């Protein structure tokens, strides 16, 4: 990683490429729809068997939308994404390991 003025200016310009406020409202509408979908799916007896994967996917979508657009990760330096998603991936892996160790799910023991 070397310092060079061109790269610095590029980084700053990229940071300033903001969405128009209406974009944020659109994201909010999508978030609201997803939340509604989560609650609706929760009450569908027919979907009970796939409820967990659906909920996980829907909440992951909300998580990503807020991170990418409201927290601006989509437009910012990839270093910021790495600083956030690295630890996130780590704790998810730890969680899966702990669940396996306590519930013996996936281990067949």
């Amino acid at each position, binding site marked *: *990683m*070397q*310092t*060079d*003025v061109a790269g610095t200016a590029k980084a700053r310009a990229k940071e300033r490429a903001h969405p128009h406020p209406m974009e944020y409202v659109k994201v909010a509408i999508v978030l609201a729809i997803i939340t509604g979908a989560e609650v609706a799916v929760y009450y569908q007896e027919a979907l009970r068997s796939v409820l967990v994967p659906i909920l996980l996917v829907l909440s992951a979508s909300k998580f990503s939308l807020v991170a990418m657009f409201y927290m601006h990760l989509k437009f910012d330096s990839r*270093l910021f994404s790495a600083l956030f998603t690295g*630890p996130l991936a*780590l704790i998810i*892996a*730890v969680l899966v390991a*702990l669940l396996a*160790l*306590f519930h*013996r799910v996936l*281990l067949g*023991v």
Partner: protein
Amino acid sequence: MATAEHAATTHQPDRRRYEGIWSWIFTVDHKKIGVMYGVTAVCFFLIGGIEALLIRSQLMFPNGKVVSPDQFNELFTMHGTTMIFLALMPLSVAFFNIVVPLQIGARDVAFPRLNAFSYWVYLFGGLLLNASYLFGGAPNAGWFGYANLTEVPYNHSSYGIDFWILGLQILGVSSMAGAFNFLVTIINARAPGMTFMRMPLFTWMTLVTSFLLILAFPVITVALVELMFDRLFATNFFNPAAGAEPILWQHLFWLFGHPEVYILILPAMGIISDVLPTFARKPLFGYPVVAYSGVAIAFMSWGVWAHHMFSAGLGPVANAVFSVTTMLIAVPTGIKIFNWIGTLWGGSINFKTPLLFALGFIAMFTIGGLSGVMLASPPADWLENDTYFVVAHIHYVLFGGTIFGLFAGIYYWFPKVTGRLLDERLGQIHFWLMLIGMNVTFAGMHVLGMEGMPRRIATYPPGMGWDTWNFIATIGAFTIAVGMLVFIYNFFASVRHGQVAGPDPWDGRTLEWSIPSPPPPYNFARIPIVRARDPFWVQKYGDAGHGHGRVVPMPVAGGAHDAEEARADEHGEGIHMPDPSYYPIVAALGLAVMLAGVILTNLILGNPPGTQPAWPPSWVAFVGLVVFLYGIYGWALEPVSGHSS
């Protein structure tokens, strides 16, 4: 902005200058903060050493009567906790502070006040932890505090565990604050041309360690919060009667605890990786491999935690998985060792004290690593766990490894900090006493463990076959103590009368040796332009032996930074350094008092230990909160105007 500032402050008297002790209390200079860390850490090291000597005195003979069993429990708990959190880690941080900005060609760390804050938090945390001795008893459940031995029904004769929780939480804040600082500093404050692959290895390991710190400490924070809530508010995190599983504590603790031991060793490995090339007058063998091995170790350290739990009954599948991952992590470690040997091979060896400690590190750490691999096998571990075999292992890697590495660093960088060399003859005596003393103390413990002597027992009966090695171990411990006395004498004598070192006493390779000893407040009169690895060596001799250099685009002249550089003359006139500030120490004090006010509510209100619920918190907590908020707001709103150096 810099221009306006410069014009505004040049003709004003220095508004924020302090003299004497106040210049230390309000400093934000990384070099002063590093010295404070180092001195404080050595003091705690001596306290931990005294605790060890008391342990060894008690165990020198069968049926010892030097201390009671309860006192013994406090001693081994405090010895471990003190050595790890109050001595070894802060001593590493002392070097992060003093050395890293110099090695990357920076004038200071990214957040000077946060740096000061992290030191004061450390000091207050360490004092609070040791205050437990004065308030009814120190913690007594081991440095790993297994639940539910630490829960109220089993531990309410003193406030020791509450002090332990308090101390560790405060120290966690300190460690994380420092880690955030160094992470940003190393990524973001390097001199022009210093790419990651041109950084000294010590800086590399500091970066890796900083990541481990910010990821591992939140986990133990949660574990300690859960234990604290159980003790203070009668929650059920580790209460089997409510359906909880105390083994959750072990998982959370070791999820932190294993990265923690790499936090303990990686900085020392970084020191060794800088010392060996300097004293072999050869570049580090396999530099990229050594750097990447450190990164690999950090990643893999998250996958091995349950090797501390082989005898906890996790089952054969879990045991097998963690056994494999543990054996795998020995690979990058071994790779480093071979690269260090490769560095020495064919070099022009300069047998000064830093090198002696580095050689000792390689040998002793290898021995510790070998016993570690033995422990990585669950069936073997079932015999060795909770015996003195493990005590031998941990002390070979932590004493022979970390402590030797840190002493190599002390002898290596002492001249840079003080301008004087530590006496070489006394240094050699210190080294040999430590090496011999260490081996006499801990080598026999391998045998003791194999012969079945458990850990953490206050006495042992005669006739078990343990007498001889225990006796010998105690002799070794006192030998180490003599070595430490030699070091302390050397330290004080050399600070005053040591041989003047000059900027580059070792014919060094990295940037810290290119500036005066001690460095001026602004470190570099002109920020260096880095064109190669081992940049100072290349500057002196033209080539580091790395072969082909890569052309790196240099910054175009212009901009505030360069304007300041152009104005600054060789003596650093006109360079702005951040003003001292009292908000860091105020915020640190407020934080420590606030947490103490919550966690020690029972003590403060005169309730017996374990009284539940310890709610509302004592008035002390609210005083602490007010002070903390005052410190934080003052810090946030304080204008940082530079003054001319």
